[in-house]
């Protein structure tokens, strides 16, 4: 016996919130939404095809896969992660011309991080994400990057709303 009315409406399934971890990515169809929690210096790149309304989110933690030796996990890097997400969306019938991106994250959590070799890793991640998107010809239509606080993001592929939450701040939808 099934009492969930919502399940009928959505083809036997309630809307899910798909979770993406650090150095991870996933695809999302409406009415589901996709989230990643606690973006610090990492960057969350949400890409959506405006016609098919299929979206995806990748949570990258490093800018460049060619600079480090352990680069098997494509979702870890801005250059490979964004490309992989776009290829995946294309394999699902999306077209690159219809894709738009929104990015959030790239903060500097601790004041002294810039003293280590990873100079301003948050800023590097943001820059590398922009370069990768530009290289793929995907416009960035909104961003909430930098500063010194963590962000949780929720992306809705239906309307492209990218909700950014931070501790002690109002929810911002970009």
């Amino acid at each position: 016996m099934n009492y969930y009315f919502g399940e009928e409406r959505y083809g036997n399934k309630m809307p899910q919130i798909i979770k993406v971890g650090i150095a991870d990515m996933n695809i999302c169809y409406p009415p589901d939404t996709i989230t990643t929690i606690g973006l610090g210096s990492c960057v969350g790149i949400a890409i959506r095809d405006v016609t098919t309304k299929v979206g995806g989110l990748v949570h990258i933690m490093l800018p460049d896969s060619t600079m480090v030796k352990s680069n098997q996990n494509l979702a870890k890097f801005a250059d490979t992660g964004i490309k992989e997400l776009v290829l995946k969306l294309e394999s699902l019938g999306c077209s690159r011309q219809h894709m738009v991106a929104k990015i959030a994250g790239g903060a500097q959590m601790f004041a002294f991080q810039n003293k280590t070799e990873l100079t301003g890793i948050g800023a590097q991640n943001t820059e590398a994400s922009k370069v990768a998107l530009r290289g793929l010809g995907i416009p960035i239509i909104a961003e909430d990057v930098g500063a010194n606080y963590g962000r949780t993001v929720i992306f809705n592929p239906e309307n492209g709303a990218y909700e950014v939450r931070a501790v002690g701040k109002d929810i911002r939808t970009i």
Partner: protein
Amino acid sequence: MSDITINNMSDQYFDVLKEIGNIGAGNATTALSQMLNTKVDMKVPQVRLMEFKEVGTTMGGEEQIVAGIYLVVEGDITGSIMFMQKKESARNMVSKLMGKELAGEDFTDMELSALKEIGNIITGAYLNSLSTLTNLTIYPSVPEICIDMAGAILSVPAIEFGTIADKLLLIKTEFTDDVDLSGYFILVPDEESYGKILHSLGF
């Protein structure tokens, strides 16, 4: 010399690292207890090799608001150490140290500074005992503090580790006084430091 990597760690190595966490955190907890003049217990340390995407869940929720005091470690052993606790617990700790109730929701500069100093003293105790045990030189940096979501704070050592590995190895010890203090010490040595630590102990 560093033929021990995180991909070929045996149970025995894990046990050794656990013992290091035990000794380090034991000293740190003692320092904390003396400083606050209260009894502080600690739990058996955990050594975990985890995927990056699991990292946030290690502290009881990625969105949990925590105070993280973070030090970069240099010398023979390189890596980082973090002393992390829930915001409430951090407030209680500062309140105990300063001998007064804290006003308002946020920390003042003075209170943040006090918290940083607590972090400095107890991570110092942790690293001192590690240094004595292994006879390796360890230089901690000046502590930095950040109060934010656990996931965002833990991504910082994860990123440092991310340049060399696809998994994160951390030595985590929980402490509590059963009333209003609880938190973790998290030691994240770089990959090559594991070999050095284990070799220095005769492995």
